């Protein structure tokens, strides 16, 4: 990692932390964007609390997606589950093609307002990348490696845990990263159904025609996305390097 990249990362992190903890320090920058003496900085709640609950729901939803997608991916690549592959593929695809806003519309009458419908939408939306990458990772393990593992007397569970999953890890991590980034953006619409999150800031800006608010919400989400993308990418590359793959292979 070059020094410049390191400095840029540190700067982005410092900017994010400073902005969500002490937003008033940045009022001067946003003031020109307001009209009619409207507040330059979001004043209907703590930015820090909103950011934390935004991240919290993304992490929880991604964790749940990861658990299900991983389990499903492993199941359909075992001899017993192979015939369920087409079915699980289409189910997971439906989760992705259904617009999250429509999921919210359906989920609210069922589970009520708040975090629950948002969680459901993010969970469904995050399944596909992790599932597809788990599948790709597990099916790409070289047949020779597996043959050698069987020939040395590894049973099915040992092959899965000691050979297949470690080898599929970089791709699975890439899937999780994709899912996290998609969820970070998508979680903003959760605020339309009263989930605590950075969407609130953006919606408040839209309602009061305050560009400064919209920009603040967007900025925090964008900084989060960049930093998480980057951090998860580092872990992936470390995992891939261990396997001797060129770093670029994991896009």
């Amino acid at each position, binding site marked *: 990692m070059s020094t410049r990249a390191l400095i840029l990362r540190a700067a982005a992190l410092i900017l994010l932390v400073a902005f969500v903890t002490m937003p008033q320090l940045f009022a001067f920058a946003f003031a020109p964007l307001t009209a009619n003496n409207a507040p330059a900085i979001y004043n209907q709640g703590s930015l820090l609390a909103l950011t934390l609950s935004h991240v919290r729901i993304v992490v929880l939803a991604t964790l749940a997606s990861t658990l299900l997608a991983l389990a499903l991916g492993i199941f359909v690549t075992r001899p017993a589950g192979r015939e369920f592959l087409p079915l699980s593929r289409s189910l997971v695809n439906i989760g992705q093609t259904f617009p999250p806003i429509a999921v919210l519309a359906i989920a609210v009458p069922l589970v009520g307002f708040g975090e629950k419908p948002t969680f459901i939408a993010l969970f469904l939306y995050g399944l596909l990348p992790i599932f597809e990458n788990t599948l790709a990772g597990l099916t790409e393990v*070289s047949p020779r490696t597996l*043959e*050698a593992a069987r*020939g*040395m*007397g*590894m*049973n099915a569970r040992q092959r899965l845990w000691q050979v297949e999953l470690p080898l599929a890890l970089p791709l699975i991590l890439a899937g999780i990263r994709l899912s996290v980034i998609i969820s970070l953006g998508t979680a903003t619409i959760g605020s339309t159904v009263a989930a605590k999150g950075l969407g609130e800031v953006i919606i408040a800006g839209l309602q009061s025609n305050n560009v400064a608010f919209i920009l603040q919400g967007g900025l925090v989400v964008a900084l989060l996305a960049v930093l998480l993308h980057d951090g998860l990418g580092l872990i992936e590359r470390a995992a891939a390097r*261990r*396997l001797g793959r060129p770093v670029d292979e994991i896009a």
Partner: protein
Amino acid sequence: MIEIEHLSKRYGDNIVVDDVSFTVGEGEIAVVVGTSGAGKSTLLRMINRLVTPNEGRVLIDGQDTATIPEDELRHRIGYVIQGYGLFPHRTVAENIATVPRLLGWDRRRIAARVEELLDLFQLDPGEFAQKFPHQLSGGQQQRVGVARALAAKPALLLMDEPFGSLDPVIRGKAQDDLLAIQRRLGTTIVLVTHDMNEAFHLGDRIAVMDGARLLQYATPADLLTHPAEPFVEQLVGTAERPFRLLSLVTVQDAMEPGHAEGEPIIVSATLRDALAQLIWHGRQDLPVADASGTLIGRISVDGILKRGRSLA
């Protein structure tokens, strides 16, 4: 000792291995040779039950392998495949430790065994133990593959085209190394190849397969002088026959007393190599030296030719 009795494998109507029987003695190398699709690999994989036979059985030291749980059986049989199938996410040391770890050996015993094997295969533990497979050359990967198969001291080693992905220059060296290690450890080996030269170089006995059937199982010399079927003769190569025979006999057997001028030939060299030397240097005879370099006799073109004729 391993006894293969009437092994057959069918996939639908397709017979891949048809009633094959042979016995490999303790510490012997049996080479299964044949064209591709002859059923060689399937036969090998039935020995460690990666493929379940339709008929027949395999006995190892008198014990029917069908009575041993599959994984336990495979822990006891070394297995080397073409391309080696090293685990790319594990270091050389971890790769070699695979079976001992599955067997639950303690850490210190595993470490000692890994170091012993790296030494045996001329891989400096300090340099190679922590490397990953992708950091090794083809020849080094091959050695790690064999070391891994030998880690838990199996009495039997199965090898499926173990030299197939090596270039010709290092292949010969790898074969010699395998022979040396096999002679030292006394491991019984069943090796599959399509390379006739490899079969004659390594095999104590050679099993010739074609179209799922075992055509002949015999010593290399027998195979040359008494081929059971025209196909065996063809595979061995009629024109090659005398030279192959010469390659089975060492200088020791055709040495004559007396002196000769020129570069000495080592007594353990094959007659084929000796003849090549004589032709190349344009000489009728050359001195013979033992391992320490002392001259102990001479070898002549006439002597070799006489010996060659008496073999056929």
